[in-house]
């Protein structure tokens, strides 16, 4: 009996190692370990083993069963591993990756959002106003003389009811002061419109960002500090900034801001208009509100505004401003 066991062990192990794939291995398993397999068959011979030998032979049989089972398991594992390895080895890792579809956010929005984040870090909140405005909000309240050319039908879009499309986001200054008491510290991004023929550097509709800070004793020093911080954050620490005296009806004194950075090709680029809110604007607000919280003797403030389209054009280096509104995916997906 024990000789049979040893012979069967040798035979089974040889068959296992000879099996080339899972199917052959399964046949080997059935042949030796199956219900009618060689090992169960041999086990039936235990009945004829003398009593004193039973323990020893039984142990040998068990060992046979354990060894063959272990050999089968490791052979199954080896064959599965080999198949897995072969499958992985077949992967050509030089084929291109396949990314999930990603869209893009418009470069103008990205620029605007950067600007918004910088001002928010300085403690500014956002404000908003309508695109369709009254002449009062767009011009009168902003101290624009009655015959000022900007009011002209040639330069400004009007609606039949006498209202207009705001020509600048400065209207939001007025909207904000009408409803909020000082201190106010806001930025207002939005669309503005001018009756310009569209060409490589002009759009009839453009995007502006307006800012306003009104409180007690706000000064030119605050204006400088705020805008210098903003511009250095946006364009880099070494940006050169120049404030140049200018004229706007709604600020006095008024300045234009030029910057010089590698992004402007080393040249001065006109970027923004700014200044101290003109007392005449505060007076209009007081008259409108019917109170004196914005009286020019009590508060002062600065305002600024800049266009984002031309800035985006310079920053990303596009030759024609119309690319910003053509919505060509080959353009949009670059950003």
């Amino acid at each position: 009996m024990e000789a049979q066991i040893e012979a069967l062990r040798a035979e089974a192990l040889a068959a296992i190692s000879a099996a080339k794939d899972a199917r052959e291995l399964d046949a080997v398993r059935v042949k030796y370990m199956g219900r009618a397999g060689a090992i169960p068959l041999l086990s039936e011979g235990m009945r004829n083993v003398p009593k004193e030998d039973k323990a020893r032979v039984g142990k040998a049989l068990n060992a046979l069963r354990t060894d063959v089972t272990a050999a089968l398991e490791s052979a199954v594992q080896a064959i599965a591993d080999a198949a897995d390895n072969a499958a992985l080895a077949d992967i050509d890792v030089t084929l291109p990756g396949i990314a999930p579809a990603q869209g893009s956010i418009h470069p103008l929005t990205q620029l605007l959002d950067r600007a918004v984040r910088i001002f928010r870090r300085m403690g500014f909140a956002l404000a908003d106003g309508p695109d369709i405005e009254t002449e009062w909000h767009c011009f009168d309240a902003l101290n624009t003389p009655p015959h000022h050319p900007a009011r002209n039908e040639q330069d400004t879009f009007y609606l039949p009811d006498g209202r207009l499309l705001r020509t600048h986001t400065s209207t939001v200054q007025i909207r904000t002061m009408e409803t909020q008491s000082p201190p106010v510290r806001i930025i207002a991004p939005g669309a503005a419109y001018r009756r310009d023929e569209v060409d490589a550097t002009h759009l009839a509709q453009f995007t502006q960002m307006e800012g306003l800070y009104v409180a007690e004793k706000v000064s030119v020093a605050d204006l400088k500090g705020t805008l210098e911080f903003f511009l250095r954050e946006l364009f880099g620490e070494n940006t050169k900034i120049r404030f140049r005296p200018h004229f706007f009806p709604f600020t006095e004194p008024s300045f234009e801001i030029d910057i010089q950075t590698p992004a402007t090709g080393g040249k001065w680029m006109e970027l923004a208009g700014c200044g101290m809110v003109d007392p005449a604007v505060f007076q209009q607000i007081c008259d409108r509100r019917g109170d004196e919280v914005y009286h020019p003797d009590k508060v002062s403030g600065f305002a600024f505004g800049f266009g984002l389209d031309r800035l985006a054009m310079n920053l990303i280096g596009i030759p024609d401003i119309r690319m910003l509104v053509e919505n060509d995916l080959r353009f949009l997906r670059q950003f």
Partner: protein
Amino acid sequence: MKISLSWLKEFVPYEGAAQDLGDLLTRAGLEVGSIETRGADFPKVVVAQILESNPHPNADRLSVCKVDDGSGEPRQIVCGAKNYKVGDKVPLALPGAVLPGNFKIKSGKLRGVESDGMMCSAKELNLAEDAQGLLILSPDLKTGTPISEVFPPETVLEIEITPNRPDWLSHAGVAREVAANTNLPATSPNPGIAPTREDAAVARIEDATACPFYSVRRISGVKIGPSPEWLRRRLESIGLRSINNVVDVTNYVMMELGQPLHAFDAAKIAGGIIVRRAMAGEKFLALDGREYELRSADLVIADSGRAVALAGVMGGEDSGVTETTTDLLLESALFDPPTVRATARALDLHSDSSYRFERGVDPAGVLLASARAVELILEVAGGVAEETVVVAGALPPLEWTVELAYSRCRDLLGVGISNDRVNAALAKLGLDKVSGDDAKSVWKIPSGRADLTRDVDLIEEVVRLVGIESIPSRLVGAPTLATRADATYDDAMHVRRSLRDLGFSEARTSTLVSRASHSAYPLMELRNPLGEEQSALRPTLLTGLLAAVERNLNFGATSVRLFEVGRVFSASQEEQVDRVALVMTGERVAKSWRDSGDESFDFFDMKGVVQSLVRSATFHHVSREPFALAVEVKVGDASAGFVGQISPSAARAMNARGPVIAAELRLDLLEAADQVREFVPIPKFPAVTRDFAVVVPRDMAFGTIEAAVHAAQEPLLAGMQVFDVFADDTGAKLPADRKSLAFSLTFRSPERTLTAEEVTAACDRLKAGLRSQLGVDFRE
């Protein structure tokens, strides 16, 4: 405005470089756009005459010339040009001269022959962009004359003047500003002003608002002819055309002092001059040769018969100075800015004169400019001026005062500037301190500075002169509480980022759209559009977005997903609303070595995107032009927008190869960017799922079955998922008017593991309900 540097230097002894002057003016608020230098300012370049020209012994293309450079010693020059003849006078660069491009002229040998200088072309002296051959000069020039005398160097600055500073619209005005910024003294012409008299028979004003003051001076016996060289050159250097000596003087004085003038031929003026409003429909033939039909609001200068000038804008064609003129009437006046502006605009007739009157001229300069022009006319055209100037009307106040508190100046500028510095700055601008103490001062303002009426106006002048560089930067201020606008902005950015992550690219389309293509909407239209294509405010974002889709398809895009966040307009209660719109078409998964790209986006892709933006959305079938399929999206009872698929034929027309699906939603009803969500406990006990298949009429919506299942309010039911929809048009596997829906129901209890029996009981109740309510057949 163009400013000639040499002209400017007549009034201020500025000796620095033109570029430095440009920087100085820009810092002072006169933005210098360009600085152009004309003429030839090259030392050691002289007029030379070619004495002889012989072939070069070693080079076919070269000649060896002997030239007279004025020194008496002939000079030998090797030359490559062919366009000259012996005897011509040409520019000669002597050794040591430096030409443009840092080209240094030296003596040397050219192909073995000595050459002692170089004869120049116009291009080599920067006198022309492009020039072939030598520049042949006038035979009248003396040899040896420096070329800078032949082409005197002239530097011209192009300056942008802000509308508040008409006092800068002249050379004397800019010179005053240079002086104020440099401590140099400024001067200005100072002709003796003639006595005045009023004589209504000579000049009278009918409308004192439109013309407060008018002056006219007679000059007899002038000889009209070309202007002398200096006068012609001055005007041409700043871009004006020389006409004749008298007209040139009037233009010259305008550019010198800022006061526009006009000279009439006295012989062509019948009777006295009347300043009056035009008669409606009155015809006027202007100097530009065009006839204008006037409005009753236009102001004219008239004689007894007709309008002879459009006041402050342009003179008349048949009353101007010509070569036959002998007697002049020289006008110098003040006209009301809005009147001049309205006329110039209405007639689209703009002149250097109207430009200045629109902004306002200095009342103190009216008689001064007249005197200056008389002085120059007598000099260049001869004649005799009448001793008195005839005037009508009255000059407005020539001076006023403004009070300034020094503390206000310091507060507004944010710098501790001393009283003395403030005083010094204002004094430099010609303001006179008439009284004051440590706290405040009172300043007399010159009449040309109509922009200075309040203390802030003076503070602006102070900061201009001390320079904003001297003000320290300060960054303080309390943060402001977020507003509704902050939330709206954050929500919009949140939507943008979500859509970007879902594969959409952000577009920006025009707010102005065609009226004709949106006639179905209650439109907000423009009164003065730039054309039909931009005649209305967009009532939807989708027109622009679909146009962008088509454009991209035409460029060969195989998958297009675009969105826009923007404002739409409607002639209704809600005039301006912010919305987000989306469009998608083409390959759902991009074609690659792994994926076929055969599947196209369909309605359910868009519905899924919308559901991710508005979790609580419900969908309701509607009809909506021009969409073949449309559903309204609701949040509660409020309409949040819609999802639609354009008709297949319209999709094909825009070159789409599959469905084109669009959606437009209100921004304010989407998921907020920042919201606090309440925790829902994670289930502790396992769920049991059962699958069902039902056969129903083709037109029964899944939503109907779903609603019935939920209406049963089975307490253990936790969810319903549809996983198969099947119909067979051939009727082979299923009658053609029926469809099969397969769905699974999930049951769960928060308290215990469910038993098979209770799930089965719940399922039986639901099935019974569906059978009886909807007549649904269950396939077992």
